[in-house]
């Protein structure tokens, strides 16, 4: 409600401002002030009367209390004028806006949401920051932003302005800049709406363009193709609030001109516009979600929305899960149709559907969790995502296997002091066993290693290079862990089944089958035997 009122007031102010070219801002500010909770404007006075005073009062008081908490009505009024000039500067003449506003009752909740989303974007574009900042205002009614920290301001106006600006936008709140804005506003100030309308008004000022656009949409519906304010914020141009018919037109028109972020919003909103108001509200939420994700994938949602223009709103922010949801909805819809026929059967079918739905939800949830685990997974399709999960899992297993091998290979020589004689072999073998036992998964899948050659895994190539190296390295590094090295090489050969004795393979396999049997003697003994063989060769 307040939105419309505020818009009207703004409009009225616009006209009044245009007429006047204010020179005495203060006077003008006080003009439109609060007259019994209603704004009296020079023109279109009839419309301004519609503002419900009590509601406005309530809103004003609540918003005030929330934001500033100590400003008087006049200050509120003073704050409003700030937004007006911005409005005026940005707006072009839209005579039809008001009637449009009058009959789009749902804009109230609808606008605040997407205005909130829009505000950060439009902030950059608009010259007047205040209007942008104030767009978030209506959100206060809903979201009760705790963001407002009313900074110590020199004037009450400034204070109020800051509170507005703090609302959701990320503009810098530097006092000097704001004061400059203030100065600007004082120059162009115009008597604004009543304090009651302030929240809505502030919100509205930013909203005006989309309203204009929506209005344009309506006009288009009627056959006339008007392009309402194409001035700076293309953001709002993309907000098509018209009927479904003009959806395509506007989408095509404005998406081309809008920024990626706007595209998302436009697409999302245009989708909504075709629906009912409640749906549009939902869509706004979705759009807010989409805009929130805009930074990540701007191109995705527009294409999605374009493709699914006439599909369910739920498809907007859900990806492949929508398929199952849709099918679930379809089945659910089909179930009631059958209730008339066989109540028993339909009931069981409903129950079945419900359980099916729950199961599917669980699966979807797990899929999403899995998707998060997999790096760089941008797949929308379930099947492809599962494919990628499988590949990733295999590569992870291989990686762990290789790394464990490498650590086991290189660990023993470092750990054991040189010149230990027989000890190194046993100790190294023990170390090897320990390191081998550590990653049971990696070692427990020897078949993976066979596939390893086909997998394009970076370390693999190096490891294969290591195969030739171990012997050389073992020879290069004197004494110490000669035994350990050899055992390491044996294990390495085990995993690279290309070469290496089968005996090594068997020994390693036995070792791996004994999970976490790091201290068992059996493998050590076998290692010992193999290491003896190697030792003989090295020396």
């Amino acid at each position, binding site marked *: 409600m307040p939105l419309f009122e505020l818009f009207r007031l703004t409009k009225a102010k616009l006209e009044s401002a245009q007429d006047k070219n204010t020179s005495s801002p203060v006077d003008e500010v006080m003009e439109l002030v609060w007259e019994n909770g209603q704004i009296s404007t020079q023109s279109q006075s009839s419309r301004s009367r519609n503002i419900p005073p009590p509601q406005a009062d309530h809103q004003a008081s609540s918003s005030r209390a929330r934001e500033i908490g100590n400003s008087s009505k006049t200050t509120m009024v003073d704050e409003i004028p700030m937004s007006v000039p911005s409005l005026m500067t940005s707006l072009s003449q839209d005579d039809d806006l008001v009637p449009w506003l009058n009959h789009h009752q749902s804009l109230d909740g609808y606008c605040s949401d997407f205005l909130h989303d829009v505000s950060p974007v439009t902030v950059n574009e608009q010259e007047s920051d205040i209007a942008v900042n104030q767009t978030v205002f209506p959100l206060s009614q809903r979201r009760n932003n705790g963001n407002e920290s009313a900074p110590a301001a020199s004037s009450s106006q400034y204070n109020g302005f800051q509170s507005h600006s703090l609302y959701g936008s990320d503009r810098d709140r530097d006092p000097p800049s704001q004061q400059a804005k203030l100065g600007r506003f004082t120059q162009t100030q115009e008597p604004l709406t009543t304090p009651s309308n302030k929240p809505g008004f502030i919100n509205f000022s930013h909203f005006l363009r989309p309203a204009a656009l929506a209005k344009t949409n309506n006009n288009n519906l009627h056959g006339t193709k008007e392009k309402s304010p194409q001035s700076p914020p293309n953001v709002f141009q993309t907000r098509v609030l018209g009927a479904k018919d003009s959806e395509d037109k506007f989408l095509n028109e404005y998406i081309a001109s809008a920024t990626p972020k706007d595209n998302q919003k436009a697409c999302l909103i245009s989708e909504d516009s075709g629906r009912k108001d409640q749906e549009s509200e939902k869509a706004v939420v979705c759009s807010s979600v989409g805009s929130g994700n805009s930074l990540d994938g701007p191109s995705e949602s527009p294409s999605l929305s374009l493709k699914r223009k006439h599909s369910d709103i739920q498809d907007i922010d859900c990806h492949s899960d929508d398929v199952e949801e849709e099918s679930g909805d379809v089945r659910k819809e089909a179930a009631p149709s059958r209730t008339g026929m066989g109540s028993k059967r339909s009931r069981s079918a409903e129950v079945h559907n419900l359980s099916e739905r729950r199961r599917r939800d669980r*699966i979807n949830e797990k899929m999403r969790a899995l998707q998060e685990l997999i790096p760089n997974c941008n797949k929308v399709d379930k099947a492809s995502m599962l494919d990628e999960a499988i590949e990733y899992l295999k590569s992870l297993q291989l990686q762990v296997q290789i*790394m464990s091998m490498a650590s086991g290979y290189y660990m023993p020589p470092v750990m054991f002091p040189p010149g230990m004689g027989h000890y190194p072999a046993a100790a190294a073998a023990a170390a090897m066993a320990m390191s081998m036992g550590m990653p049971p998964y990696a070692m427990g899948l020897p078949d993976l290693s066979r596939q390893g050659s086909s997998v394009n895994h970076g*370390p693999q190539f190096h490891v294969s290079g290591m195969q030739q190296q171990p012997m050389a390295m073992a020879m290069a590094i004197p004494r110490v862990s000669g035994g350990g090295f050899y055992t390491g090489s044996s294990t390495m050969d085990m995993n690279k089944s290309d070469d290496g004795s089968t005996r090594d393979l068997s020994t390693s396999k036995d070792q791996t089958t004994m999970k976490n049997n790091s201290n068992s003697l059996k493998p050590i003994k076998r290692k010992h035997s193999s290491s003896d063989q190697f030792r003989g060769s090295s020396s």
Partner: protein
Amino acid sequence: MSNRRSRQSSSASRISDDQMIDLVSKLRQLLPEIRERRRSDKVSASKVLQETCNYIRKLHREVDNLSDRLSQLLDSVDEDSPEAAVIRSLLM
């Protein structure tokens, strides 16, 4: 209209059902824990997915541990030795 809807849903679910079965079976082969379960036929998809998530997290932890160890090894080894090169290649 209902035919279209059912066809759409069924077509979508048909594709995903077959693929789901196939993929779930593949995943099950990869998961060592599930493989050891006796009633391997009745493992549900959600269970498999859950196990996969857990397994991946476990592997991540393993990789982290191993990289820590390898980095420690790298510090202890001479910079110019071939071992260092190998370890570095593994870590990166």
